[in-house]
């Protein structure tokens, strides 16, 4: 799917990496994918190539419009019934998208025009917003229907990750069930906004897909109860709000990073001392991200685009940076249990290995490894 700079309207071909460092024409860093929905309705007539694209575009329309509808309602207290709302939205959006998108670059849609411009607006800004909720089912369906360009760009990034030795999950996702389950769990992660940012961010690692399963399960059982309990009695303190916000941000970061590959890269420009900047974040998202999401629009959602899965007001952009750095640090820490220096050369962090719930069954070439995660027992069980 081609991309378009939201500032100057420059169009980038599918799979272009040009925009990873910002728009070369105007320096803008917000992009939208040039809607396929214009072709999606006529896609079946266009040829087989479009079929997959139109399918996915259709589902995107649905989800984005649904997200949009929710958002609008939240913003306006609009009392229109949901179904009607959604229906209108789908149609409106599909139709309206084709016209304004092509002609005029969407430059200021960050939420200013919820009603009239609902097409372009959700397409770009709510893209990441709706991802956490909608992405998994959507992703799973037409994994291979993407264009080759997209696949190529993915492959490239995967290769990058491979070279660095720890971005391997996606490549296995086709054969292994774990990434799928990780995906299944992800919505849980979003919905159960546990008050600990650290744990939330932990999940964004290569290894964490499985660890995630367990962590999330534990969390939904324990912390949701806690929050319900406290909701009945306690008054929220500013500290708690801050903690909650940061945890939500961390959780949002992850989904936000997931769908578009390019997003990940451009999102993390600076400040990773240990890793090449452009690749710094990619492996985690790659790792965590099964490769089956190419149908996601590659809208570049830079770090400063407010995103919130729940439709809440999000932090000012500047706050995201430190969190990302922090998150990155945590991620890096997690890779330390076994560091593959070179093929055949390993550095081991015994404490990490000892502390881990996962049991590393086998290492593979190029830094992949297989872990077994206990899901129904842990060290606590032993004390019984």
């Amino acid at each position, binding site marked *: 799917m081609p991309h378009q700079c939201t500032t100057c309207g420059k169009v980038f071909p599918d799979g272009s990496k040009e925009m990873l460092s910002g728009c070369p024409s105007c320096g803008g860093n917000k992009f939208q994918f040039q809607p396929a929905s214009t072709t999606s309705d006529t896609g079946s007539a266009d040829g087989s190539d479009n079929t997959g694209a139109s399918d996915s575009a259709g589902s995107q329309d649905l989800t984005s419009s649904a997200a949009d509808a929710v958002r609008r309602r939240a913003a306006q207290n609009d009392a229109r019934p949901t179904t009607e709302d959604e229906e209108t939205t789908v149609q409106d959006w599909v139709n309206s998208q084709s016209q304004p998108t092509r002609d005029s670059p969407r430059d200021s849609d960050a939420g200013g025009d919820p009603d009239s411009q609902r097409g372009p607006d959700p397409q770009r800004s709510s893209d990441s917003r709706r991802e956490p909720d909608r992405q998994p089912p959507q992703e799973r369906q037409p994994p291979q229907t993407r264009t080759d360009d997209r696949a190529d760009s993915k492959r490239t990034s995967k290769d990058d990750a491979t070279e660095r030795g720890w971005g391997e999950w996606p490549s296995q996702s086709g054969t292994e069930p774990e990434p799928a389950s990780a995906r299944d769990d992800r919505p849980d992660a979003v919905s159960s906004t546990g008050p600990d940012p650290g744990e939330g961010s932990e999940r964004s690692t290569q290894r964490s897909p499985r660890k995630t399963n367990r962590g999330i399960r534990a969390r939904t059982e324990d912390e949701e109860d806690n929050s319900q309990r406290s909701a009945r009695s306690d008054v929220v303190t500013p500290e708690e709000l801050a903690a909650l916000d940061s945890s939500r941000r961390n959780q949002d970061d992850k989904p936000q990073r997931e769908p578009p590959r390019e997003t990940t890269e451009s999102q993390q420009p600076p400040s990773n001392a240990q890793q090449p900047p452009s690749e710094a974040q990619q492996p985690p998202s790659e790792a965590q991200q099964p490769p089956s999401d190419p149908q996601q629009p590659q809208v570049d959602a830079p770090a400063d685009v407010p995103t919130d899965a729940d439709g809440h007001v999000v932090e000012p952009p500047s706050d995201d940076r430190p969190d990302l750095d922090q998150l990155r640090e945590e991620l890096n820490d997690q890779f330390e249990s076994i560091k593959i220096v070179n*093929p*055949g050369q*390993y550095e081991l962090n015994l404490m990490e290995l000892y502390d881990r719930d996962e049991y*590393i069954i086998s290492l593979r070439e190029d830094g992949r490894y297989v872990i077994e995660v206990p899901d129904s027992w842990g060290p606590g*069980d032993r004390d019984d």
Partner: protein
Amino acid sequence: MGLLTDLRDSISRVVDRLFSESEPKRIGIYGPPNAGKTTLANRIARDWTGDAIGPESHIPHETRRARRKENVEIERNGKKVTIDIVDTPGVTTKVDYKEFLDHDMEKEDAVRRSREATEGVAEAMHWLREDVDGVIYVLDSTKDPISQVNTMLIGIIESQDLPVLIFANKIDLEDSNVERISNAYPQHETVELSALEGENMDEVYAKIAEYFA
């Protein structure tokens, strides 16, 4: 999932064992690579069951998967203990295939051995956390006992409150220095031995029976 089931089973076995005196205790033989863990495990197994546990080698990381010998009954001085001996891969913080190239190994084999050794360390650490009731920590008495690995592992073992015996192995070698080991870890009992030559095995078994009974 078979492994998971196994692990779960073994955990429940451990839990059961805590309440049952008659069940064998699972004793992990830990230590750095090439300290003589497998030689010791084989010595114990042969002495009390007639079977060996696994191949010994002078090349480090010969043991890359934990091996277990179950129901080894050791009786000394009127004390009798039934243990499962778990011979674990040598624990280290660095594995480098180049180390194996000195032992007439092709690079490909060395790299594979290195990878397996790393998996072995991960496995050993996992077992330490989940699945042992006591530890025999084997050290090569010709080498400096104070290393990051030893300090960390013994620290972990202590934090688990696991009973531990420190075995100063290879006392048949000239530059063996048992005192250095007992000084390094004065909080634990150090038993000298040569697993290869079978020296001082009487005391070894007496201590095992005493500690793990």
